[in-house]
């Protein structure tokens, strides 16, 4: 549900950019409306999509930019997004952009405020249909179900571009605080916990050849998050066990003070990602691929467990012992390959093979507990087409054949054991820009 406190800043951004354009020379604004439809044979995607179509995907973005000084600009975007169980209105980005040096060889500048995380080929424009040129971006790298962890941050971004006769180099370096309002829990952990200290350092170096036919980039993400939850909220037997132990102790040793009990409740999660991106275009064909390695390390605090001093003599009382919990290391892998054929400016079609593994040392999920083994991977073969009806209207459709549920939303599919491994997804979007 949408909170008023979230609508207000978005409305301020909107009013800023939709106010009378007296200085039209320096103002620019645009809006994009996208309505989607999704249909699945198994599992739910963007609402209740099983066997009958769901229309629970709407994206409305209004962005604008105001050049108030020869080298400084204010730009922002308000975004309304409804995707299945998630409905949100937000300030997608809002930055003060100052270019403090510009010459024929190079330029440098910075952005201050809420910026889109600069990684890969698509992240900054993932919520605008005309820029993603697809219904869904490859979910391996641009997952919608985990989008808050990857979308934007409040902080500072430094940028530089260098121009040569061969092409252009773009470098972005950023550090800021993430906004995790719409994520139900850290992936792989119980849902419903709370986040704190969520920061991301993101950098990218991108080269584009002089004719725009070749683009290549390396991006690095270093994110830290503290995620806290209480296991007793998620496991009734654990809760009952604790209560029984407590009752037993009280019964055997009346009046004893109950000792503090701590049990695993999350910890500091450090995540590193490295992404290699590559795109090459011929006159009619564009080939693109991106490959990502993810290194996730969870540092659990040590756990104290109450225990009887002497197991044979309960009246001897209680003590505690401290147990170190080993760090959890998980190395994930994701990649996609896509070929697009451009028939003419109106029509194009594409094929995509998109794969993600939570743990590249256990790709089939043989070692996972409490979740189906197919929830730790997803392999998606996609056929898609785009019809640019005119420069303002775009119709896009995709058919996905998927094995695995790694990026399936746990909000739209609350019980992981209720999902199926093999599923088909048909999605369509109609977009209008002005």
């Amino acid at each position, binding site marked *: 549900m949408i909170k008023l406190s979230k609508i207000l800043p978005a409305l301020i951004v909107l009013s800023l950019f939709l106010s009378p354009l007296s200085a039209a020379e320096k103002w*620019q604004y*645009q809006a*994009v409306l996208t309505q989607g439809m999704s249909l699945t044979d198994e599992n739910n995607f963007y609402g209740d999509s099983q066997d009958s179509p769901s229309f629970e995907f709407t994206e409305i*973005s209004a*962005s604008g*930019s105001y*050049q108030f000084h*020869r*080298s400084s*600009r204010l*730009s*922002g*975007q308000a975004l309304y997004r409804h995707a299945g169980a998630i409905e949100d209105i937000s300030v997608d*980005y809002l*930055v003060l*952009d100052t*270019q403090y040096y*510009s*010459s*024929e060889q190079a*330029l440098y500048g910075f952005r201050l405020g809420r910026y*889109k995380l600069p990684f890969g080929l698509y992240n*900054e*424009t993932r919520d*605008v249909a*005309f*820029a993603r*040129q697809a219904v869904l971006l490859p979910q391996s790298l641009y997952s919608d179900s985990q989008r808050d962890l990857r979308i934007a941050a409040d902080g500072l971004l430094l940028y530089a*571009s260098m*121009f*040569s*006769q061969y092409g*252009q180099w773009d470098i972005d370096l950023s550090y800021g605080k993430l906004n995790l309002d719409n994520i139900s829990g850290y992936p792989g952990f119980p849902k419903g916990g709370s986040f704190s200290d969520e920061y991301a350092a993101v950098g990218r170096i991108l080269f*584009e050849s*002089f*004719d*725009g*036919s070749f683009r290549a980039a390396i991006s690095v993400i270093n994110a830290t998050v503290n995620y806290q939850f209480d296991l007793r909220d998620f496991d009734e037997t654990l809760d009952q066990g604790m209560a029984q132990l407590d009752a037993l102790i009280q019964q055997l040793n009346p009046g004893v003070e109950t000792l503090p009990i701590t049990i695993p409740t999350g910890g500091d999660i450090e995540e590193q990602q490295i992404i290699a991106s590559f795109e090459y*275009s011929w*006159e009619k064909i564009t080939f693109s691929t991106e490959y990502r390695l993810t290194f996730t390390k969870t540092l659990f605090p040590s756990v104290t467990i109450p225990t009887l001093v002497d197991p044979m003599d309960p009246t001897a009382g209680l003590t505690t012992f401290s147990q170190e919990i080993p760090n959890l290391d998980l190395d994930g892998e994701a990649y996609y390959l896509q070929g697009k054929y*451009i028939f003419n*400016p109106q029509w194009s079609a594409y094929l995509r093979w998109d794969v993600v593994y939570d743990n590249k040392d256990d790709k089939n999920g043989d070692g996972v507990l409490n979740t189906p083994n197919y929830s730790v991977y997803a392999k998606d073969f996609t056929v898609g087409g785009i019809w640019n009806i005119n*420069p303002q209207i775009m119709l896009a459709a995709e058919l996905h054949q998927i094995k695995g549920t790694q990026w399936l939303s746990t909000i739209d599919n609350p019980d992981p054991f209720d999902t199926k491994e093999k599923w088909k997804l048909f999605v369509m979007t109609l977009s209008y820009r002005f």
Partner: protein
Amino acid sequence: MLVTHPSTPDRTLKFQTLRAIYSMRMQTWPDGDPIRVFVLPDTYQAHKDFCKTLLKTLPRHLRRNWDRLVFSGIAQAPSAVNSTTEMKQKIANTPGAIGYIPREEIDDTVVIVHIDS
């Protein structure tokens, strides 16, 4: 032919500078005045010719980059005009303007800029 407003400082541009200007990344002339970029619609032959012969790129690559920069707030889009006549008028009346018009339409309200490649 590439033309600019008479007040712009350069009569020749390096190819990479033209690219940087039309990719909307370079936003000021060497003297610090803002650059104002004008374009015709993607489907016009004059625009396709400009992309092919002067920028050595495809209109869709240019458009993709503009969309990427504009929707992410990194840069503003070039100003679109609907005819070469309008292009010439806008360039003549806008300090810092750059655009392209056929050779036969050029008069002394604008100046020709050569590419040094």
